[in-house]
């Protein structure tokens, strides 16, 4: 009996056994795709240096916390983590404050140079950071923004802004202007209509684009390495030293870098799903 026929006869599951196997198989495969590298990372993090380069590997490690302890005692990790969180948070706020109004304007208003503006927003990503870093650093040193959370956050905002503008643009475009017009006819002014009608609808999407800005800032290394010295962010602080480090420290350092990001994504996953439109259904 074909699937279509089954569905026609009112079979609730509507799926053949074969279909189910493929589906389950794909789910398992995707899960393994993500989980196996993380598992290996963690196993090697908690192994002694000899076990890390040894072969064959045992599936369950003999717990050795030497590598992890090294990072917990490594001077400045805590401070770098704190700097990272501060910079990423400021970046998140700035890019939404600048990006959301721009996205709204692009979707609701016709104005001269609109298309040029849209291209220009993207242009900020056209220049490689190593090229921009030198003049930026000179300017920052002269005006006193050097080695500050705000200074670095401004650069990261510039990197995150195109995404914030384009994501919010499509969010606002997805909401019929008639809803706003209805609110106006019922006595709202433009601002009230926005706050009471539009904002609740786009809030999950805005949160998602804020998270995106957070992640961009979290992952950026070059500008952070040039523009900050004492207030270095975690990736700038660790990543450069890890590339050349012995294998067991690479794994432990990798775990130190991955875990906060995983934790963060786990906390905000609901909003990330909403960016893909799943939670709204």
């Amino acid at each position, binding site marked *: 009996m074909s699937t279509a026929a089954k569905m026609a006869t009112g079979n609730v599951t509507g799926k053949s056994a074969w279909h189910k196997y493929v589906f389950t198989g794909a789910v398992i495969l995707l899960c393994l795709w993500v989980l196996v590298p993380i598992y290996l990372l963690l196993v090697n993090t908690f192994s002694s240096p000899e076990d890390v380069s040894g072969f064959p590997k045992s599936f369950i490690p003999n717990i050795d916390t030497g590598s992890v302890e*090294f990072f917990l005692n490594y001077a400045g990790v805590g401070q770098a983590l704190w700097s990272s969180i501060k910079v990423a948070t400021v970046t998140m706020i700035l890019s939404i404050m600048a990006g959301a109004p721009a996205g709204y304007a692009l979707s609701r208003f016709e104005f001269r140079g609109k298309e040029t503006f849209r291209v220009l927003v993207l242009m900020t990503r056209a220049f490689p950071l*190593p090229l921009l870093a030198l003049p930026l650093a000179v300017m920052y040193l002269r005006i006193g923004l050097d080695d500050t959370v705000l200074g670095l956050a401004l650069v990261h905002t510039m990197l995150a802004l195109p995404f914030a503008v384009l994501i919010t643009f499509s969010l606002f475009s997805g909401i019929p202007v008639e809803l706003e017009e209805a609110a106006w006819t019922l006595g709202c002014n433009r601002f009230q209509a926005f706050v009471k009608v539009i904002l609740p609808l786009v809030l999950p999407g805005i949160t998602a684009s804020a998270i995106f800005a957070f992640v961009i800032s979290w992952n950026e290394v070059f500008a952070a390495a040039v523009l900050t*010295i004492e207030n270095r962010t975690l990736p700038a602080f660790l990543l450069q030293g890890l590339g050349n480090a012995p294998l067991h420290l690479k794994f432990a350092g990798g775990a130190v870098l991955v875990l906060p990001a995983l934790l963060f994504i786990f906390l905000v996953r609901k909003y990330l799903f909403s960016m893909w439109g799943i939670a709204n259904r």
Partner: protein
Amino acid sequence: MMVKKSLMSLALAAGLTTLGAGAASADVLFWSTQGNTVEESQAMRDQVLAGFESGADFQPSDTGPWITRIEAELQAGSGKIGVLGSLHGSLISLGDGLADLSDVNTDGVNSTFLELGKLGTDQQKYIPWMQATYIMAANKKALEHLPEGADVMALSYDQLIEWAKNMADATGSPKFGFPAGPKGLKHRFFQGYLYPSYTNSMVSKFRSPEAEEAWNKFKELWSYTNPGSTNFSFMQEPLLTEEVWVAFDHTARLADAFNQRPDDFIGFPAPAGPTGRGFMPVVVGMAVPSSAPDMAQAKELIAYLSQPETQIATLKATNFFPVVDVELPDDMPAAVKLSGAAIAAMSGAADANPGLLPVGLGDLGGKFNAVYVDSFERIVLAGQDVRAVLDDQADTLRKLMEEAGAPCWAPDADSEGACPVE
């Protein structure tokens, strides 16, 4: 207490009596491209700089951000960086921005390196900080496959090739490893080891028949080389996983293998060719940028780092060797003992033929390296005709030397004007 006392006397001797002022201001920021692995920077802070009285903050960085940052501070005319630590080649490109360090006490510092530190001017632009070189390392399992009559401490290139062949035949997989990965230091092998050993030159005999022979020998060696080599940047890792048994690399990039399993590995000199045993010492220097916030305190830190005790602590922390005359104590890490023995055998060999790092190329150093890396990729990886590639690359090299106007350096004979490519 000893350290404190000698520090005081040294600071006085150097005429830098600003300890009072130094203590009041912030830590000296030491901005370095060396010691930038997490382990090494931790050791630099805890074991080396902790003894500096006015306080110092060690911040390592990759070369890209390192140079961008200091260039920005020099342009802005002010900044946070007190002392720079980097390779000879990176410091050259900052030439004009470096303060004169002639008034820092340099008693006991290697005079050849001090001369290099003048960067061709009459000012002391940098003071040597530490040195390293490239050696060979082998798993002891490999020794039974040595060709008959070969002494591992005095190999020739032919013997090395035969050894690599024996290992490949016996184990079924190539066991010689070469750091040809993206971050590997392969160009130094061609510049400082292969060329001097076959042509007694690094530049002027670039396209000579002897050079052709050298490349053909290397091609032969490559056929018994682990194909994973194009991914290897630090040979300590494949040595530890036993993917390779014999390897060439920088001493600091072999240190982890020696330290983790000192009883399983040996260090030994690079092989010799018809014109001797070519090898290349690497110099790391300390400099003070003209934008330093506290010049006196920065010079004090340099004087502190040049002391024999500090140099030994630095050796333990970074696996780079002292540049001042010191007696090494017995409690050294395994890597220091193993590579120290290899270096002693290499530099003390009757046929030793040391070559210098490129001198006077300024910011063309990267292009200079590219000539050798491109030749390697075209001849060995792409299998192009050796003669044609050498003729082609020689043109690039000649233009580059003329643009830089750099005279020859060892092992090439001195030249009037730019070093010629014959």
